[in-house]
């Protein structure tokens, strides 16, 4: 039985081609984990904004600063990507768009639309 336990497994994720649906799915997961990690700072900001006029001002100032805005944009992208791919998964769950070609298209669509959303928000912020 020795040779059985030593059997190699081919699972080189750099060699296995991930279809676009898989890319969107893993992005959904990664952004999800990041968004969870962002929960404490978000709650902290909410608390600060409500505490007093001074803390509110500083919160707005932090968010309005250049690094603040950049960070906000990244977070926004994560959020909308997670949101759109989430909507896509919801639709797939109820049997909408599960054909191979439509699923590919909708995967691309989430990527495109989240970038477009990001641009719109970016424009609105400036």
């Amino acid at each position: 039985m020795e040779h059985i336990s030593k059997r190699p497994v081919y699972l080189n994720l750099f060699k296995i081609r991930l279809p676009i649906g898989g890319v969107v799915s893993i992005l959904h997961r990664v952004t999800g984990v990041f968004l969870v990690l962002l929960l404490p700072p978000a709650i902290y900001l909410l608390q600060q904004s409500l505490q007093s006029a001074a803390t509110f001002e500083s919160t707005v100032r932090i968010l309005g600063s250049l690094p603040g805005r950049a960070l906000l944009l990244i977070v926004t992208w994560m959020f909308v990507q997670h949101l759109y791919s989430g909507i896509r998964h919801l639709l797939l769950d109820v049997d909408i768009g599960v054909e191979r070609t439509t699923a590919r298209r909708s995967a691309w669509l989430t990527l495109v639309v989240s970038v477009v959303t990001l641009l719109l928000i970016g424009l609105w912020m400036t």
Partner: protein
Amino acid sequence: MTIRFSIYRYNPENDRRPYMQSYELQNDCGAVMLLDALLLIKQQDDSLSFRRSCREGVCGSDAVNINGRNGLACITPLKDLKQPVEVRPLPGRPVIRDLVVDLSQFYAQYRAVKPWLINNDPVPEIERLQSPAERDSLDGLYECILCACCSTSCPSFWWNPDRFLGPAALLQAWRFLADSRDQATGERLDDLEDPYRLFRCHTIMNCVEVCPKELNPTRAISQIKEMLVRRSL
């Protein structure tokens, strides 16, 4: 001009670890499909092992990972492949030798869905009647050839092959749930309702991407979920 190949090799009797070996075939060797090429390569080097049987895409023996994508060698045209053509075993399963993987876990998951018709009515003397529409609902389900392309391209199956049934087995679970003659719906749904067996599917849809018979396990899984939801309401 030659066609270049790079093939995953591992013989447990000689090799510590797997390696990629290069082969070449002449352009005019007559190989149309990848399987033809593999058979010619085996004539050069008889130590190369792979499974094959029908050579026309109905038996499901020769599923391998071709340029990073799972597929049947016998219906993959060579001319569509980027060179060197990289051929590796199906991902995520223990390699017995070269392109031959151990699929016992895959088959065990298939058996786990009780893939047989259950009907406890007294046996009639004629066929159990089924309307053409009821029969149509089995199309796209019963054609599965158990090649394992789908399940071995599914990340959820990579991470939990012992607990997640995988797309192939779930497609068969739905094939019997969808059969108007089957009466074990409740029992089958009970067996699926745990955090792993069915719900590890995250609609990644790699299965649909690679299925050589163009079946749609994701749709089958959605339909099982829908049935579960409906039952719980």
